[in-house]
């Protein structure tokens, strides 16, 4: 019985909050919005344990602190675009001054992103989904070169170093951007008559090392190994070192981490591809804050990468990577 009473109360509260929310539709008074009132929400697809996205988050927090604005960062714990769609809808309902999203699956995220745009929230796309910006009328893309082109470059560099047969280790099976990287890598090797296979894996270190080991045992002609993130590359490096076979392979990875840079500096790894994702967290906060306060906004996409970190620069970048900036 008391339950019914509380439900009635709750409906009252909901109605009240609706009424409060209704006030928000009124046109803003003609004064500049204060930094403290600006709120920006990030919704990305990065898994919680991915080093790459931690750096994006650090960039976001640094910008928020320097400007004194409020930011929130949300991502599903596992790669799940349907959950991401719900998160974008939830973010839209909370009426932020700006929304920053990554778009790993255009089909699934089209409706929620366009709905956010329709409500009048400025949307910045980071990392992946540049091809969605123009058709959906979004505001800006901040990110590296296309995944495919980065893959092609990686393939070309390895081919130059004599790799004929490579493998591409995909740890987020189902993520189009990662599929594109592997595709590019294959085409980059193809230019000089080589090719590559995709090895499907997960983020789990044991799982990755065992699968790759098994694959390499069965395919002795493979000399190039490309991983799509440090989370996967680090356990593989350890496996190769333990097995004493690290000299047999040219190993490259997308994205950086301290271990990767150490390995590149030592020469056990060939390169790390850096999209300077710190900027993907940092700049959107700056741009959207300026838009909320002064209505100023960049007019073309901001390119943050790719930069290939080779043996000569690795040591210098390493300290920054330790600090979670590279």
């Amino acid at each position, binding site marked *: 019985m008391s*339950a019914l009473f*509380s*439900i009635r109360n*709750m409906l009252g*509260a*909901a109605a*009240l*909050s*609706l009424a*409060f*929310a*209704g006030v*928000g*539709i009124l046109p803003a008074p003609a004064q500049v919005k204060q930094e403290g009132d600006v709120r920006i929400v990030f919704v990305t697809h990065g898994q*919680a344990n991915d080093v790459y996205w931690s750096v994006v988050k650090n960039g976001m927090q640094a910008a928020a602190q320097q400007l004194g604005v409020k930011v*929130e*960062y*949300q*991502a599903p*714990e*596992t*790669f*799940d*675009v*349907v959950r991401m*769609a*719900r*998160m974008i*809808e*939830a*973010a*839209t*309902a*909370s*009426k932020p001054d700006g929304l920053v999203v990554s778009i790993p*699956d*255009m*089909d*699934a995220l*089209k*409706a929620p992103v366009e*709905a956010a745009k*329709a*409500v*009048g929230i400025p949307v910045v796309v980071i990392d992946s989904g540049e091809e969605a910006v123009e058709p959906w009328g979004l505001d800006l893309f901040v990110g590296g070169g296309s995944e495919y082109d980065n893959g092609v470059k990686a393939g070309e560099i390895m081919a130059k170093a004599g790799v004929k047969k490579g493998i591409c280790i995909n740890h987020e*099976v*189902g993520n*189009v951007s990662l*599929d594109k990287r592997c595709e590019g890598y294959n085409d980059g090797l193809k230019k000089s008559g080589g090719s590559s296979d995709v090895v*499907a894996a997960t983020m789990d270190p044991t799982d990755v090392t065992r699968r790759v080991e098994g694959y390499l045992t069965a395919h002795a002609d493979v000399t190039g190994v490309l991983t799509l993130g440090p989370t996967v590359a680090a356990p593989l490096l350890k496996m190769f070192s333990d097995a004493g076979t690290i000299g047999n392979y040219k190993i490259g990875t997308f994205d950086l981490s301290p271990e990767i840079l150490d390995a590149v500096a030592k020469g056990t790894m060939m390169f790390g591809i850096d999209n300077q994702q710190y900027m993907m967290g940092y700049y959107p906060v700056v741009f959207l804050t300026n838009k909320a306060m002064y209505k100023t906004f960049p007019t073309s996409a901001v390119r943050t990468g790719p930069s290939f970190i080779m043996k000569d620069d690795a040591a210098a970048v390493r300290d920054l990577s330790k600090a979670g900036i590279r």
Partner: protein
Amino acid sequence: MTILTDALNPAHPPEPKPVSRRLVRLMRRPELGAITGTVIVFLAFGITAGNSGLFSMAGIANFLQVSAQLGILAAAVALLMIGGEFDLSLGSMIGFASVTIGLCVTQFGLSIPAAVAIAFVIAIIVGALNGILVVRTRLPSFIVTLAGLFILRGLTLAITRTVTGRTQIPYITDGQEGSFVVWLFGGKFGAPVFAWLASHGVIDARPDGSAMVQGLSMSILWWVAVTAFATWLLVKTRFGNWVFAVGGDDRAARNVGVPVDRVKILLFIGTALSATLFAVIQVLEAGSADTLRGTQKEFQAIIAAVIGGCLLTGGYGSAIGAMFGALIFGTVEMGIFYTGIDTDWFQVFLGSMLLIAVLVNNYVRRKATEAR
């Protein structure tokens, strides 16, 4: 239905005086704990995230959609759990059904209705296989369906990669957005109502004057329909009595002539069908299929059913309770964002909330069944 559980559970307290009998009967309902939990969750968010947009129309539409999709699974899982079994292959079945639809449409050129029909037929086969394996081998369904979890997920990945070379199947609903079937499963309803409410300033509007919420997801109607059907089955039909009997004590049920094997097989078909309905809704809403869809949904559905009052031992529970269980889960899942808590903490809160909900549930049930 309570008569039957009473009959199978001789340890019941003696019937109290007529005055309080109705109250006691109310307190004995399995869904009471879940309803109490729902009220507590809503109050908690009302206090912590009252005017952050969670209870705006857009926020409500958002968490109802999450709850609805889970609730469709939870209703079927509640039935199965009352019958004393588990189905852990549910999440993988979602992925399998998703790519079945995707492949049928994009690779084999079938129409969407045909693809959906094929997915449902496959679900009946998979469910029947699960059921037959469980009743024939007498192994715990936990183990048998755990095998199904891996096999189906692996098939999903392998077949999709073999056929398309990728793990996502985009453009499934391209050019079909207006078709009846797409609307039926993945569309929105109530648009005129929302438009009217927006034009009269009752709910938020977009800058161009249209409603911020263009309608509610059809999955919400499916949720209500599936829950109503499951409740009718449980409470009003002979089959429902059989389910309680089978879950309570299947040997006794067999002795009084209940077709135990048939009941269990049908219940497994039910969960596979609910997983496929979930997949159809998700594919037609998102327009794409993905080999990872439905991961971990089997546990979420079990959690929702348990919050809703189902016992892991079978023979007790309700579909309405599972509906509230799903509502709690969806509200917590989406509500946490509105409180502004960093998502790193999300799972901690989700786990704690669920634990509290189950504890409340348990306490209410124990109090209700105690002798007075």
